[in-house]
């Protein structure tokens, strides 16, 4: 870690030196509910995501700068094809998708209730990602398709097969883009540091979205995250997520996310390109009632190779 950057961060107005007790990694074992409560309380002790991140950075004495020689260590070998371990379309994998453990503000509750009411009245919904726009973060964590994770000394790439989606985590000591020059995007801007084989990261400048379809809550454009990723065994990555959203959450939302390396003995599983225009039968329209419908089908041979209905005709 570049100490100069660290000092700048620690003396920034957003940093509050709290007399907070550090909570390290806690296993997802038979004591998980107690551990989870402790991790939830840890997040709640901070006024915002940035003060939590700086506290973690200070607790790690500025973090460790990795080298290419470190990459052969098991802690940094995140190779393989992974998928989300469990949780389905629930942001909190410990519960079903029609529930939430988020502590919502009045505004957050109102948005969720409106989603529920709309689905009850129409019998369906439209998902904005139907046209292959990225799911965005923190929804990124819930997507169920293939993932690859690439650790290098200066950056870590968190790759989602879905819509060719990559989260880049800069671990070279750089700061976030300045507020004056920043703009919001699906995956925002992520910086991080390593400590004892654990990648700690902070993400901001995100666009609003939903944690998932169905009755999962929405998040606002002020959402920010602190995450701690680590490999817990040869085939499993786990991550602590603290989501901060002053508009929709009255308290940070803690969850433990997980990805499992898949069996791939024949090497058939590979990350391949996603394009909603690749097959015209995949065009999804939003109906006036807010639900989803396919465009007219052609069902002719080779229409998967055509780019539009006009070209077919």
């Amino acid at each position, binding site marked *: 870690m570049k100490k100069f950057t660290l000092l700048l961060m620690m003396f920034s107005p957003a940093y509050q030196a709290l007399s907070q007790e550090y909570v390290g990694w806690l296993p997802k074992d038979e004591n998980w509910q107690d551990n989870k409560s402790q991790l939830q309380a840890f997040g709640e002790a901070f006024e915002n995501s940035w003060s939590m991140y700086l506290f973690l950075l200070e607790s790690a004495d500025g973090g460790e700068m990795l080298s290419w020689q470190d990459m052969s260590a098991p802690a940094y070998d995140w190779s393989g094809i992974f998928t989300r371990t469990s949780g389905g379309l629930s942001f909190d994998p410990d519960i079903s998708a029609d529930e939430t453990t988020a502590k919502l503000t009045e505004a957050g509750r109102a948005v969720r209730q409106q989603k529920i009411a709309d689905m009850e009245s129409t019998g369906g919904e439209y998902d904005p990602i139907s046209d292959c726009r990225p799911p965005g973060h923190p929804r990124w964590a819930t997507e169920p398709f293939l993932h690859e994770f690439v650790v290098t000394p200066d950056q870590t790439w968190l790759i989602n097969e879905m819509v060719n989606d990559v989260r880049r985590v800069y671990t070279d000591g750089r700061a976030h883009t300045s507020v004056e020059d920043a703009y919001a995007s699906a995956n925002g801007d992520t910086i991080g540091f390593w400590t004892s084989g654990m990648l700690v990261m902070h993400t901001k400048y995100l666009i609003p979205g939903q944690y998932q379809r169905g009755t999962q809550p929405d998040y606002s454009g002020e959402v920010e995250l602190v995450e701690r990723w680590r490999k817990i065994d*040869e085939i499993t990555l786990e991550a602590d997520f603290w989501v901060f959203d002053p508009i929709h959450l009255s308290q940070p939302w803690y969850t433990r996310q997980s990805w499992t390396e898949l069996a791939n003995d024949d090497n058939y599983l590979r990350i391949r390109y*996603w394009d909603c225009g690749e097959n015209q*039968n*995949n065009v999804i329209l939003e109906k006036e009632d807010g639900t*989803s419908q396919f465009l007219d089908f052609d069902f002719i041979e080779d229409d998967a190779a055509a780019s539009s209905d006009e070209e077919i005709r």
Partner: protein
Amino acid sequence: MKKNIALLLMSCFFAQGVMAHHSAAMFDFNKVIDVSGVVKEFQYTNPHSWLLVDVTNEDGTVTTWGFEAEGPSTLMRAGIRKSDLPAGTPISIRANPMKDGRTAGAWIDAVINGKMINPRNGFAVTPASR
């Protein structure tokens, strides 16, 4: 043991007919249709694959049906490869039909050459063994 239960739950969740990339509002999950015909084309594409099946009607005309499944990587995890369903393959297929009556559905499972295949098994998590 707990891990195995979690993996099973995930498999069951998606087996209920949830499309992971778009809302499944256009399908009627209270109905199941059973269609027999021959494969016209297996469109092995992202984000969703389509199996086109030619069905001969009672009057001798042929109607092409389309059955949606997840994309190639999820089908591979279900053990269904592109080469498993060449054109001309006789097939019996079950699906949740479209609500609007068009000749398409959400593919549940199928029988080819006496073998059952289930594309929704592709969300089961089969861990690597290292």
